[in-house]
């Protein structure tokens, strides 16, 4: 990762973290519908993975957090408007936070039923391959979603067709409230790659360099026509499945221990050490992010709710 990319990855991680914190506050205060699945703890792998791809490489994102969209430069107010069902978002109340979309930024949407991303991502990759665009498709998913049958079908199909596709697993060990220990037969999701004759790699999802390098390698392989890869980033979920989840399935001590692995201070230290950031610049960055979020929140509050007549639109193209 070059010296221009590294601080930008950090800035986007920080923006994602702070925006999500603001959404949590607004949600707890009843000012926003509470529909976000918090992604704190996952930002490093999401943003580093996307930094390793071209800005027009299509992505099917997961439901954990909002860093995917921040990584692609989607303005925060668009995300807030989608959460709040206001005009000015990307899907006008049709899909809310689960279906944020912007094809011009390669944000191809998300399947509400888990696993849909695998088969749709395979189709997007099929089109990119047949149209010889040179693009690579990335599908983000959790360890829990890898237990859907669509994973098997898409992985096998992608491998047989040598599709330019990256299966990117964010393994946080939890499927809502069910531990991977009781739901998943393998220790590493990446081990499943062997069943599809594709490379499977495990990386530390808190290490932006490891994630970046793994995605670069998978993308190179995909662009050379050598087919799909599976990358598993070991990460941790700092919050419950949704805002307000009482988390009866794990202890506060457990979560506190996970917090020690927070990728944000880790990258911050790294940037300071490399001389790519200092305390003054960090303060400016925090301030700029805070005011950008303030502006986005104000904008969202002023925006009207999506009109009821919108419910009838976009079912069919013709």
């Amino acid at each position, binding site marked *: 990762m070059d010296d221009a990319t590294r601080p930008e990855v950090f800035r986007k991680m920080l923006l994602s973290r702070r925006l999500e914190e603001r959404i949590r506050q607004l949600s707890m205060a009843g000012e926003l519908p509470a529909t976000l699945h918090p992604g704190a703890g996952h930002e490093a792998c999401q943003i580093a993975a996307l930094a390793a791809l071209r800005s027009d490489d299509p992505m099917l994102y997961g439901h954990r957090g909002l860093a995917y969209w921040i990584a692609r430069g989607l303005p925060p107010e668009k995300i807030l408007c989608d959460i709040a069902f206001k005009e000015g978002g990307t899907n006008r109340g049709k899909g809310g936070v689960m*279906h944020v979309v912007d094809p011009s930024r390669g944000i*191809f*949407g998300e399947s509400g039923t888990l696993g849909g991303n695998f088969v*749709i991502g395979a189709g997007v990759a099929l*089109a990119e391959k047949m149209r010889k665009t040179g693009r690579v498709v990335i599908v983000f998913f959790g360890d829990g979603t890898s237990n859907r049958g669509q994973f098997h*079908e898409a992985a096998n199909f992608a491998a047989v067709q040598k599709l330019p596709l990256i299966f990117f697993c964010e393994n946080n060990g939890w499927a809502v409230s069910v531990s991977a220990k009781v739901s998943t037969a393998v220790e590493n999701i990446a081990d499943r790659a062997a069943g599809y004759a594709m490379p499977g790699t495990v990386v530390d999802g808190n290490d932006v360099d490891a994630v970046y390098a793994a995605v670069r390698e998978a993308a190179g392989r995909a662009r050379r026509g050598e087919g799909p890869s599976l990358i598993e980033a070991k990460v941790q979920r700092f919050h419950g499945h949704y805002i307000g989840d009482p988390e009866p399935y794990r202890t506060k001590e457990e979560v506190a221990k996970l917090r020690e692995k927070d990728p944000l201070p880790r990258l911050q230290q790294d940037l300071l050490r490399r001389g790519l950031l200092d305390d003054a610049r960090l303060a400016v960055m925090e301030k700029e992010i805070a005011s950008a979020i303030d502006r986005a929140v104000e904008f969202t509050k002023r925006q009207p709710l999506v009109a009821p007549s919108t419910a009838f639109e976009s079912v069919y*193209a013709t």
Partner: protein
Amino acid sequence: MSRQITYGQAIREALVEEMRRDPAVILYGEDVAVYGGIFRVLAGLREEFGERVFDTPISENVIVGAAVGAAMAGLRPVAELQFADFVHCAADEVILKAGTWRYAHDGAFELPLVIRAASGGFGFGPEHSQCPEAYIMHSPGLRLAVPSTPADAKGLLKAAIRMNDPVVFFEHKLLYGMKGEVPDGEHIVEFGKAKVRREGSALTIVAWQEMLRRSLEAAERLAAEGVEVEVVDPVTLNPFDRDAIIRSVQKTGACMVVEEAYRTLGVGAEIGAMLMESAFGELDRPLRRLAIPDVPIPTAPHLVDALVPRVDDIVQAARELAPR
């Protein structure tokens, strides 16, 4: 000018013409490329179109899901599911993905894809014989074509491939060998326009595909008895030409739906409810439905005959419903 060709040949012609016209059209599914489709209507397509025609693993979820993804990214996939029953294998992808992706993402994408599948028939057992039109018709976001003649099979499939919405295209197994006139040259059939296949005044029969064929045969026999029935073919079930059925019922005062699917909440139930809501005053006799009783479709042909409406059943029911 026109020619006599089979329903299967008409489908093949539509695919060949559209694939020649538009390089974005691809064709794939189980046994599609080398074998030429399990009903052998696709012979020679692999030779002409190369990698644009390919075989897939037995993976219905990815067959349909990939069609959605490929359509989002600039292709016009025609995906084959072999048997219409397999829409249940890929229900997530057919109903939730193809049907709602565009809506959930507020029209960010067009989804020009066609899911072809062979429906109906006999002797294939409970999981390879169904006509699952009602499931599709019940699901917003999907167009649904049920061609009954070679000309409609060709014209509707060409229209489906050019359409920017997902189309489920059911080809009836018993019709693949049926011959009929197909116009020469470019032949497109519009979705949402029902056709009156036979005019009459005694009652309206709504039927499509094999049940239409049987209804028309029944109509001949009824005519010999002096009972002139009107037979309406909806052609597509989404869009659904309600007005054509209402117009016919205004003339005849009675309606019978003949369908090769389970009775409860079938297409006939919807047509009946629609007439209650929109044309109650036009009906002077109760609605009649001929459908498969709510039991699975067996394998033995003589058991199937005990369940699926036969010409005799249609004649008998029409006699009962005709004005005295």
